[in-house]
């Protein structure tokens, strides 16, 4: 073996392996999924709209993935639209629905959307933007656990209400919203309502773990993306129930039932199909594995770090297995994330110091946390490649880092 290679091997062995505990931000692509995608770059590069064999090969791949997704959501193939991201799916769901509805409505008739204060920015900012155009938006509050109250929702529904958009699992706290119950409530109300309320859910953080069969949930529109499920970045899905009025917001070619113009991102679509296939195979097992790690993580953190808490539902049943949001009194979250990163551990925070606006997490603020506590949050999110050893290393590192920062803050 050449000397250089030996030196390289020794060097890499000495290097501490980095630990990734930010799966809620994005996941690595599963090598098995990458392998399925690979032929669609150089070899099978056809445009699915072309009628020759190159095109038809690509078309077949896209439709296979559509089948896989439809099976996963237990819906029709014609109800699946591939987009460029979950953000785009959310925009298509909300803006596309509104666009279609406005064409149906009489002059002067208002549009009303109900959403929550803890939605992802993709929904929240879309709603804020629509508000500027005169759309009435209601932002439901949440309790200290980050979960909306069904009575609050019921109280806000008016004859004008057109859309309810509530996320399935919160990306900062892992809190699970009662999607099934909301679905039933809306179905009940729709029985006597002049025009129906449509129900959209952003299920980005749920697909790995929870039941996403659209009929079980009672949703009309559902969003998710590839890069949170070990697939590629740059690919999203919007499920649109048959008969739900949605107009295209990106106009051009007739791709995706005329709802999303632009040549299909074939490799990414193939990757997303493979990703849901992987989830189908291992969902229950993975849920149990990650939940065990989460339980161990939280129990140990609370016992070894004084003045620490878990933000969000205190009951594991109301929380997805992959997100733990901690509060460490006296420490600002960004300095904690940077300190952990210098130790080779990647996490995230709802602290303002990572945002341009210097405002702390809107989710934690909506939950009623005092500002200083919202600044003191640390999100640790686990995934299918997380090991017990990685959690052990995190637990070994954390108390030292916390103590150091508390000494500096004097709090």
């Amino acid at each position, binding site marked *: 073996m050449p000397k250089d290679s030996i030196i390289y091997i020794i060097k890499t062995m000495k290097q501490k392996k980095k630990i990734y505990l930010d799966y809620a931000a994005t996941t690595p692509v599963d090598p098995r999924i990458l392998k399925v995608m690979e032929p669609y770059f150089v070899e099978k590069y056809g445009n699915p709209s072309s009628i020759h064999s190159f095109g038809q090969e690509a078309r077949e791949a896209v439709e296979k993935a559509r089948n896989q997704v439809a099976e996963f959501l237990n819906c029709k193939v014609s109800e699946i639209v591939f987009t460029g991201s979950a953000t785009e799916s959310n925009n298509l769901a909300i803006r596309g629905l509104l666009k279609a509805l406005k064409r149906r409505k009489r002059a002067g008739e208002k549009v009303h959307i109900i959403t929550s204060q803890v939605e992802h920015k993709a929904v929240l900012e879309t709603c804020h933007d629509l508000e500027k155009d005169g759309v009435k938006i209601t932002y439901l509050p949440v309790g200290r656990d980050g979960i909306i109250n069904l009575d609050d929702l019921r109280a806000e529904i008016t004859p004008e209400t057109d859309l309810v958009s509530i996320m399935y699992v919160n990306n900062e706290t892992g809190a699970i919203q009662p999607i099934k119950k909301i679905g039933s409530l809306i179905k009940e109300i729709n029985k006597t309502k002049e025009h129906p309320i449509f129900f959209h859910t952003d299920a980005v953080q749920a697909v790995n773990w929870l039941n996403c069969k659209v009929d079980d949930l009672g949703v009309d529109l559902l969003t998710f993306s590839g890069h949170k499920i070990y697939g590629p970045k740059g690919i999203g899905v919007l499920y649109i129930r048959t008969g739900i009025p949605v107009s295209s917001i990106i106009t051009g070619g007739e791709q995706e039932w005329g709802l999303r113009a632009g040549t299909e991102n074939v490799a990414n679509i193939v990757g997303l199909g493979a990703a849901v296939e992987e989830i189908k195979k291992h969902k229950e097992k993975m849920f149990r594995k990650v939940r065990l790690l989460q339980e161990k993580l939280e129990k140990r953190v609370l016992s070894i770090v004084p003045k620490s808490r878990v933000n969000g539902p205190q009951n594991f049943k109301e929380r997805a297995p992959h997100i733990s949001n901690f509060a460490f009194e*006296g*420490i*600002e979250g*960004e*300095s904690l994330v*940077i*300190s952990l990163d*210098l130790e080779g551990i990647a996490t995230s925070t709802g*602290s*303002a*110091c990572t945002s*341009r606006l*210097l405002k*702390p997490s809107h989710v934690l603020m909506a939950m009623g946390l*005092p*500002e*200083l506590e919202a*600044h003191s949050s640390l999100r640790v999110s686990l995934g299918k490649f997380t090991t017990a050893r990685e959690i052990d290393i995190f637990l070994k590192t954390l108390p030292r880092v916390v103590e150091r920062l508390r*000494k*500096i*803050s*004097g*709090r």
Partner: protein
Amino acid sequence: MYNKKLLKHFTNPKFFGKIKNADAIGRAGNPRCGDIMDIFLKVDKKTQKIKDIKFQTYGCAAAIAASDMICELVKGKKLDEALKVSFKDVSSSLGEMPPLKVHCAQLATEALRTAIKNYQSKKND
């Protein structure tokens, strides 16, 4: 995100801590923005020089590094010279801060100036 120099002052600050019987304390920042800095001063009455200076900061890495840097920059300086140290001096001494974090340098100078003002107004009482 941060350069090595700034990270060094964040991971190994030399001036953190409290001064018991400080001659003056200055605070800048608030819970809303998520940075709270306290600067403690010990002043030589005769020479009007900063004999000792320490800080306690709840804040991001840049805020902690800026707190440490302002202490380093003004220790041993006369009060009127210390007042001249600007946030630009703090930022450039840290090898330039990310634009989003320049307000941390402003906070650090604000905390120092408040401490000095508190000292001077005490003296005049």
